[in-house]
């Protein structure tokens, strides 16, 4: 498991307020809204918290990135992309 994935699992578990669900139990292929109740407003809060942890700005994500985030695995993909961009 990459560091990015570990952090994203932890934040999804916190945001979803999942009772008894540990970060390891988070299904990254599940729909964030349907499975964890993470609505569009909460998704922004989740992403803002992740940005803070990864030390990137949410404004560095473009419309295409923001439009395709439905699942945990989407979050991993866009955050890895932005981190790669910041490193290069």
């Amino acid at each position, binding site marked *: 498991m990459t560091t990015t994935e570990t952090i994203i699992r932890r934040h999804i578990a916190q945001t979803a307020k999942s009772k008894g669900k540990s970060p390891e139990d988070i299904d990254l292929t599940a729909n964030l809204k349907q499975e964890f109740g993470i609505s569009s407003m909460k998704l922004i809060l989740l992403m803002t918290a992740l940005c803070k942890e990864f030390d990137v700005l949410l*404004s560095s994500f473009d419309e295409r990135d923001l439009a395709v985030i439905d699942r945990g695995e989407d979050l991993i993909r866009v955050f890895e992309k932005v981190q790669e961009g910041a490193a290069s």
Partner: protein
Amino acid sequence: MNLEVHSKKTTLFNTLFTKKWNANDTLKVYCAGEQPKTVLLSDLQGMVENVATWLISQGVKQGNRLGIVSTNRLEYVLLDLAALRLGLVTAGFDPASFAKQQDLADSYSLDLLFYDKKFAETQASAKQARVIDTVLEAALTPQDISLPIPIEYDEKDVCTIKFTSGSTGAAKGLGATVGSVGQSLSSTQKMFSHGPGDTLLVFLPLSLLQQRYWIYSAIHYEHDVVLADSRLALEAIQQEHPTVIMGVPAFFDALKEFIEMMAGGDGHPEALVNAAKQVLGENIRYLWTGSAAARPDTLEFFERTCGVAIYEGYGLNETCITTKNHPEAHKRGSVGKPLDGVRVEIGSDGGIYVYRDHPVNDHYMYAAEGVSEKVFMSDGAVATGDLGHIDEDGFLYVMGRADDVVVLTNGKTIAVRPLEERILQLPDVKQTIVIGTGRHLLAALVSTAPDNDREDVKRDVLNATRGVGSEAVELVIFADDGFSMENGLLTSQGKVRRRAIQEYYNEVIQKGYGGQS
């Protein structure tokens, strides 16, 4: 109603373009995929004048109608101010509601329509359509045309068309008078004294006229303003440390959860205060909320737990800002006292009626036949369709929409809002409406986190409404998809669309009631 009886002069728009905009104040703009842009208001003035001359070069004339369908961005501000400078009438369309409507330009008689191609490419085929990106280039390019002197507005002139997203049906269009804008801004200013040292954060769509007020306020009363795409609101808060955040209840509900999460979840007051400071910054003066009813637990959280003032207010598109809590007059649970120049009366039907020195208008510009007459009364009142009462100190309390009343088959008439407020205090309940018209008992349609124990939630909801009114909720039905703008069950301002919700969940409601009334 005769608009001419109102003689009080408000001159805000007439002075806005004759003064020099302050070089110490800034407009900062956050858009997705871009570095934030900072513009000195003194520079913004030059950019607006360039856009105004460019618009003239495009053939526009005073009184022409200019549509904008875009999310929040610098170009939106430039166009709006340039249009005001030239005496055009703007029409702001929220992309979430209008982007896919193909005939915007013709339907609303627009002379020009600026669209954001990321959200509203469908508008491209109209002959009046222009990509909004072109505005920034125009702002940076002086035109070889002299700019006429600023026009002198009459208080009754219409400067923009507002569209009600409508909690009950199709959007209605309403021309807003210059006088109504000036009156709202000056009376709000009396309550909050925005000025040097203030930074107001605006992230709700600029298609809502009230959000554009804070740009005009920054120029007129000389303070900073931060404009953000709504998705970047929290980032803008953390980067800019605003003194005032202009929001809606759903945003502050989410912000409360975020602060609780940052505090570590054990609910320790000191941890929550520290987390609130970390999230909101040290400069916060107050939070502004309105457009829909705030959750009592959210108001209490910010005020009592975090020590941050949050002021709830009341107003419709048809009345503009009507009442507002503020530092000198605040009662939690009320929506405040009327603004200067506004009078609120409760009719014999329990309805809220609003009179303004400078009315927004006396009719809709776009609405079905007969609709204007139901809202704009002949004596100048706006019939809000909301129920309320005024306490002995003059604070208004909104009890719900007149159409929030449920009539059970036993003949009892029940205002459901107090029941809903009580249910919303339950931590596991995210959203609810209470229904029951034409049925024998009240049911709560409830949205909750997916992994909450439904039996626990049911028990809590049933207990919560006992003793609140003459009837308690006796049935709990779960709304698995919740109510959101995406599924069309909330308006763009976060209000519940009761009829749409009941249609959407018709099957589960029928099942919940056991297939019978």
